[in-house]
């Protein structure tokens, strides 16, 4: 029973990682860049939701929508201002810029909201008691897992069936050929950032519901973990991000419970290294044959 409760908390933590990892992996798959500022968009999403509920007194659902809308705009603006001009630049220049954007967001948050942590109140409260109270599951956990599943299904359908989703896949394979088809590559990339950032807002709200100390650096750790999850599952692969996120959450939760709280992060990263040594493309990463 105790094991089960650790498993469920791992599953919900993993769901948050998975939602963030989806953003990383989509942007990587389509724009071929690692958007290290993605984690900080989570933090902004958390703050917007916090302000909307605490300062403006808006209902939670409206606050979440507001937060998603704000992060969508933020993601598109970041892409347009910082990354678009670097489309032809070497990968290293883009990476350094992304790190720069990350610091910029953290410092902007520091300036606007200050260094003192805000106490984020969970978007839903209460717990579910099962087996005569032996197993307690918070509603936030259930909500998080459900959100992750819904997002995963919706995103898979979108990528596979919608016209824009297909264009995204075409761009991810061959930008030049996609342009020859009449696909507006820049617009496709902006849309990818928009979706990834909206997901980051959702993740931010859920993450802060578990870990309520909201600070300008709040996004860093889940950002790095989710990036790890995306690589773990196979960067560029949507099911990979999902699987990587969930597994990472479960490993972290079990390691905390049974091995050591302090060692949990090291264990998570050690597992990543082992996986990458055995399978360099990650769990579900595809080997893409070179074109002749």
């Amino acid at each position, binding site marked *: 029973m105790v094991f089960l409760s650790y498993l469920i908390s791992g599953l919900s933590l993993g769901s948050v990682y998975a939602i963030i990892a989806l953003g990383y992996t989509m942007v990587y798959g389509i724009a071929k860049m690692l958007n290290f500022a993605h984690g900080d968009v989570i933090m902004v999403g958390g703050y917007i939701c916090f302000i909307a509920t605490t300062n403006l007194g808006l209902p939670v659902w409206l606050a979440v929508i507001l937060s998603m809308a704000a992060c969508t705009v933020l993601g598109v603006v970041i892409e347009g201002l910082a990354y678009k001009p670097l489309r032809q630049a070497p990968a290293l220049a883009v990476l350094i810029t992304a790190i720069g954007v990350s610091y910029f967001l953290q410092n902007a948050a520091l300036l606007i909201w200050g260094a003192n942590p805000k106490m984020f109140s969970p978007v839903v409260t209460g717990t579910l008691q099962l087996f005569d109270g032996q197993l307690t599951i918070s509603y936030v956990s259930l909500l998080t897992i459900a959100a992750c599943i819904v997002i995963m299904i919706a995103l898979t359908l979108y990528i596979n069936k919608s*016209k824009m989703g297909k264009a995204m896949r*075409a761009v991810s394979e061959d930008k030049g050929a996609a342009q020859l088809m*009449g696909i507006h590559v820049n617009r496709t990339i902006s849309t990818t950032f928009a979706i990834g950032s909206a997901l980051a807002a959702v993740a931010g709200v859920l993450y802060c519901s578990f870990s309520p100390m909201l600070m300008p650096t709040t996004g860093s750790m889940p950002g790095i973990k989710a990036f790890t999850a995306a690589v773990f599952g196979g960067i560029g692969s949507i099911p990979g991000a999902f699987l990587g996120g969930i597994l990472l959450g479960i490993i972290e939760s079990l390691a905390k419970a049974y091995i050591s709280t302090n060692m949990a992060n090291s264990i998570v990263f050690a597992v990543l290294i082992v996986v990458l040594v055995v399978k360099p493309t990650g769990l579900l990463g595809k080997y893409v044959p070179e*074109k002749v």
Partner: protein
Amino acid sequence: MAILQVNDIHVYYGSIHAVKGVSFEVNQGEIVTLIGANGAGKSTVLNTVSGLLHPASGSVVFDGKDLKGVAAHKVVEHGMAQVPEGRRVFLQMTVEENLEMGAYTRPRDEIMGSMDDVYRRFPRLKERRRQIAGTLSGGEQQMLAIGRALMSKPTLLMLDEPSMGLAPILVEQIFDIIRELHAGGTTILLVEQNAQAALSIADRAYVLETGKITLSGTGAELMASDKVRQAYLGG
């Protein structure tokens, strides 16, 4: 009437001057071929025409419109389609999805008809329409690349070495298809290293050497030229 006019274009890759003042034209209803050795600049010329590359100077005029400043993804809407070198089909997408991408700029209700046309021309693609393009053979991928380009209903179809890497029987098939498309009213600009086959179906031809056009004439004239025979037809 010239449907495509390329006027004195210069194209650079960084400091590499790949195309040095190329001019040529393609008239409505013609098959024009551009032949030349590896690295002569043939693909560079085609990619400049389709807007993937931008000339440092000179102009590309298609259907009376100067394409300067027209984004690459807009060019297809003007009625131009390219079958790129190396096919470049979307390997992880299905055959049908590849064809849909070819018709990306067209309204949904028109796509089905064009797809049926492509399937009629390439029954092999129809059989494999749910298959991932990466699992097709080289010849099938080339047919897919051509079918995909046809999905935009181009008035000018540009093909970059469509026979590359294919067995002789498939090369023949590809050239038959080009002839059929031409007979159906499509204007063709064909880039080839297979000079023999290209010259034999071309109305007119240009020879490109290290970024410059060195010879031009009708297909028959170039086929008879000593210079072409020595350099491109193996004596």
